[in-house]
């Protein structure tokens, strides 16, 4: 078939090209540009090739931060997704309680990150915070500013408090979309509660679970404000996550080159892991040809 060329068609795509350029391509190119140069001043910069990438990948502190970050994100997923499913399953399907429960669940999602950090900072303080005093009152020695395990548990608890609702709301929407006939058919087929979950509810939630997992992975991998306000990354560097390192490097020390290389690696890791999640979930249960 002969192709017709119509040069003015470019005008049609121009707005999109312009918007995408400013929103993504130009900022990304700037970062790539910085990542291969050593910049002392506007007129004073040298091309260094892959030097910064080598430095970042070889830095034991950053490697440590990556390990911490993965551990944190997987802990978040391991807690929030099953908990979200469980809460969604317990929620009423209809009636006046639905809106009450939905509003209660949505509340944490409305609180800004810094405020969440501040709330928990006070809530968990062993001297004046309700939680801190309570735990110590039970005879458990708890101090999130002094003990790294306590700090970790507190950061995780804070994230679970802040974001489990998102998983709940998504799962709830997924469950609500299942037609009654499926439950009725399952009753006629004599399916147990577990079988209903395993063969109807879980497969039908696949789509929303994928969204929940991807969103919670990406967000938790990028976490910054909450632990920064709560623990400041401490004690030591036990709760210093990647964003905090990056911010210190770029804004605190003004090491633009290494920070740019760091940013690109950070971005690619999120992209790669998200892609893997997407593929795995999408192909789950397709074992039978």
């Amino acid at each position, binding site marked *: 078939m002969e192709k017709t060329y119509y040069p003015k068609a470019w005008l049609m795509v121009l707005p999109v090209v312009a918007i995408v350029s400013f929103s993504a391509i130009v900022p990304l190119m700037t970062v790539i540009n910085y990542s291969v140069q050593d910049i002392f001043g506007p007129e004073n910069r040298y091309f260094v090739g892959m030097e910064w990438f080598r430095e970042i990948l070889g830095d034991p502190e950053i490697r440590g931060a990556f390990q911490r970050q993965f551990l944190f994100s997987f802990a978040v997923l391991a807690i929030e997704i099953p908990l979200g499913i469980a809460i969604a399953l317990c929620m009423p399907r209809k009636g006046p309680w639905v809106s009450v429960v939905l509003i209660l669940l949505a509340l944490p999602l409305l609180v800004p990150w810094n405020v969440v950090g501040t709330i928990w900072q006070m809530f968990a303080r062993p001297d004046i915070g309700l939680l801190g005093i309570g735990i110590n009152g039970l005879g458990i020695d708890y101090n999130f500013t002094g003990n790294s395990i306590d700090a970790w548990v507190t950061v995780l608890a804070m994230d679970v408090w802040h974001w489990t609702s998102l998983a709940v709301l998504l799962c709830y929407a997924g469950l609500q979309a299942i*037609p009654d*006939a*499926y439950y*009725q*058919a399952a*009753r*006629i*087929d*004599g*399916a*147990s509660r577990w*079988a209903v979950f395993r*063969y*109807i509810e879980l*497969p*039908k939630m696949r789509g929303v679970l994928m969204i929940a997992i991807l969103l919670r992975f990406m967000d938790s991998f990028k976490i910054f404000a909450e632990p920064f306000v709560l623990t400041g990354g401490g004690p030591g560097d036990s709760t210093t996550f990647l964003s905090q390192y990056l911010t210190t490097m770029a804004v605190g020390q003004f090491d633009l080159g290494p920070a740019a290389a760091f940013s690109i690696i950070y971005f690619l890791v999120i992209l790669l892991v998200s892609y893997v999640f997407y593929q795995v979930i999408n192909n789950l*249960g*397709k074992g*039978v*040809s």
Partner: protein
Amino acid sequence: MAKIELRNLAHSYGGNPSGPQDYALRRMDHVWEDGGAYALLGPSGCGKTTLLNIISGLVQPSEGEVVFDGQQVNTLPTERRNVAQVFQFPVLYDTMSVYDNLAFPLRNRGVSEDRIRERVEEIAAMLDLGDVLKRRAVNLGADAKQKISVGRGLVRSDVAAVLFDEPLTVIDPHLKWRLRRKLKEIHERLQLTLVYVTHDQTEALTFADRIVVMSEGEVVQLGTPQELFERPAHTFVGYFIGSPGMNFLDCGLDGDAAVVDGHRIPLSEEVLEAARQAEGRLEIGIRPEFLELTEDSGGVPAEVEFVEDRGTHRLIKTRVGDNELFVKLRDDQPLPAERARLRFPPEWTLLYANSRLVR
């Protein structure tokens, strides 16, 4: 095998019904014979699905009893009743193969794998699903999916009744016919009691031995297709069955005839006998198939409004006073001019009092 009895059955979704308008299902008393093929026919919202769900146990009736083979099953949960139900849209377990879908009801009941294989293969062969047993059910066409839903109902050897809730809604027209044949074939082979809900009269008439016509929560007639056609017990049945439906004309009675718009229409002895007890609003009803055109001066004069060629027959719309009347004319009969005379054969002219057949 099951004989299904509905004793004084009624259902209201709201609770505390204050009058007939609060009932989704009005009081009914019926016996559905073992091994019969029944169609529940009626417009949307007439209570068909409610009745079906009460029989399968998905809904608890607020009044009366459901009895299977003499045993009251009101309190028996769905999974313990030996009925299977097929829904409007195919219900499949997405992650399972066709085989596992069919095996699911048996596995839930702890049947041994050997026995399961035997049953699944038998049912799959019956439904022509043998070739796709290993495939994932979700990837199949709508008709195959619905066959799997049917198969899950039939696979249990203890199933005595299969309930269908408009199962052919999502099936292509040319496959509908085949699937309906298949259901009929299975019915003949397994001698199960089949209850088939539909709002499509063709489907009901071709599928069932006996048809239960429902309107506004009430069973208005239970009978064979022929009975519904020839002797509708209620004007609703007359309207609903047939295309177009029965003609109804307001009338009075005078001696041995009904009087419509000043014209006398003679009635049969049988109808006249029964008419003596009739009270309320009177109508005569006659099927377009039974109305005849006549040259005789005793015929009722009518204006011809239009003629429609329907291929096998011609449909003529006529007017007598304020009443519209449809007449079905065979292709070989001569067409009337603008005016015609109608003959109402007494054996096919029925009398209705307050919408109910006078008999």
